[in-house]
């Protein structure tokens, strides 16, 4: 169990992360985001980017977290494979580790345009695990 999965959406793709804590679920959903583009095991965690965001509720904070990653992936032309996420109240502080896109090695399938509010959820499942999910526009 890798702690993340994709789910089908008509034209695009949904991502879902599971974890013992919301922090872990956020981190694993981010791994699912990378997996939309490439195989995360091929992305070397060589350099880190600090990401901080704040939103009044946890679902919008998840939306903002993913979109911050999309922004850094696009502007730094990087892919990320390791995420240290800390949620503190309505704030998120994270370090995302990765490397610049290498088209030959990563064979990136598609760029992520953004995380949407569709199927957006952060909740605790009956078994106690946390789940964080939404649909990405690709």
């Amino acid at each position, binding site marked *: 169990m890798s702690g993340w999965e994709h789910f089908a959406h008509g034209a695009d793709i949904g991502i879902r992360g599971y974890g013992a804590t919301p922090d872990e679920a956020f981190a694993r959903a981010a791994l699912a985001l990378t997996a939309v583009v490439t195989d995360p095991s091929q992305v070397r965690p060589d350099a880190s980017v600090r990401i901080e965001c704040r939103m009044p509720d946890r679902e*919008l904070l998840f939306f903002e977290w993913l*979109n911050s990653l999309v*922004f850094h992936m696009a*502007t730094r032309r990087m892919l990320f494979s390791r995420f240290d996420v800390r949620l503190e109240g309505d704030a998120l502080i994270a370090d995302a580790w990765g490397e610049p896109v290498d088209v030959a090695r990563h064979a990136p399938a*598609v760029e992520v*345009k*953004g995380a949407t*509010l569709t199927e957006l959820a952060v909740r605790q499942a009956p078994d106690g695990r946390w789940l964080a999910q939404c649909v990405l526009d*690709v």
Partner: protein
Amino acid sequence: MNLAGLQKDSDYRWIVEPTGAMRVPAVLYADEALLRDMDDKVRQQICNVASLPGIVGAAYAMPDAHWGYGFPIGGVAAFDAEQGGVVSAGGVGFDISCGVRTLLTGLRRDAVVSVQHALANELARAIPAGVGSTGRLRLSSDEMDAMLTGGARWAVKRGHGDAGDLAHIEEEGCIAGAEPESISQRARQRQRDEMGTLGSGNHYLEVQSVAEVFDHGIAADFGLEVGEVVVSIHCGSRGLGHQIGTDYLRDMALEAPSFGIHLPDRELACAPLRSELGQRYLGAMRAAMNCALANRQILTHLCRDSFARILPGSDLRLLYDVSHNICKEEVHAVGGVSRRLFVHRKGATRAFGPGHVAVPESMRAHGQPVLIGGSMGTASYVLCGVESGESLALGSACHGAGRSMSRHQATRQWQGRQLVDDLAARGILIRSPSLRGVAEEAPGAYKDVARVVDVAERAGLARKVARLEPLVCVKG
């Protein structure tokens, strides 16, 4: 889709009468087979759209509709600012002003086939495509503002193309009311290296031959003749538009409660047209529309250079450029009264009929060209707006085939290398930096575009003019 509760108005028009929060009916254009293939989410989403404040007439779903974000892709809805109408970032989408432009080459198929490999390689070299690719232009802050207010006109002024192109672009290449000051620094940063790039996913630059003509008179006037070669470019406003969509979707979700709008789902986040946020979004969105028009203009210029290298003396003229992810202020007759409305077309193409003043003069007698993108390896279509489309769906038609299969299913079913080889054996050359991307975009993962355009025609939304078959496809 479960058809229970859908009222069949004709073989191609189905209606959901307003119930619950719906303010107007939802109208779906499809035959029974296409409708049954559609996700139930399409019905749910179009009924949700019908419940938004200030909606006028009906919420419409086109024959290629599929599950989107708030609005279904293939959704059309108009709002009246005077009646508390709204603008929705999800109703436009992340790829603001994504669209298609088609260029006439005047070349015969044989002439292009004889240099097909060289042309494919040259286009793949010249057109930046795929994840991590960058354009050759770097705009200063002032220059970016000029691009955001000038659109394709700015691009032509800077030497990317001909002034003659502008008459064949929506709004003559420049959308009024753009407000660069309503765009975040993040959106500007995302665009810094992306001017003149194609993107990825279903975006492409395709060399196509006219395989069939349905309406000879209109085709001749559009410059389409069987055996001639055209080029179609499908892309949008790149990182700038994606970030504007992201920024305003978030802001609309945050501010929705303060507007007192009850949303059946957060994904419908919107703002009153008369609110400060609604106005700011319109200004930012129009700037992104100009970015998309400028981007397609730059790609046109790169494409012309490539053709000149491989086929010296070739002269590529613009047939038309039309967007399918937009919100535009238009005048429509509703119940015999002309009203100024904000028309959202999310994955739907404007399709104005004969005589409409927005149609270029040279085409006005026939109606506006409606450019329908296929998927790699399948046909594309040129349609033409018809008079009936105005009352049926505010002058709108479909935009493409629409996916029938998820990206995951596609990669399980096809191998990228095999697809490229199979298509090459059929005379279609694919150039893409990503074989996984090719597999995800497999032609078989899309609905049959021929059925979609047939239904669009039978429903009275547009008329078929020509079918285009691919020869070369450059993808991201």
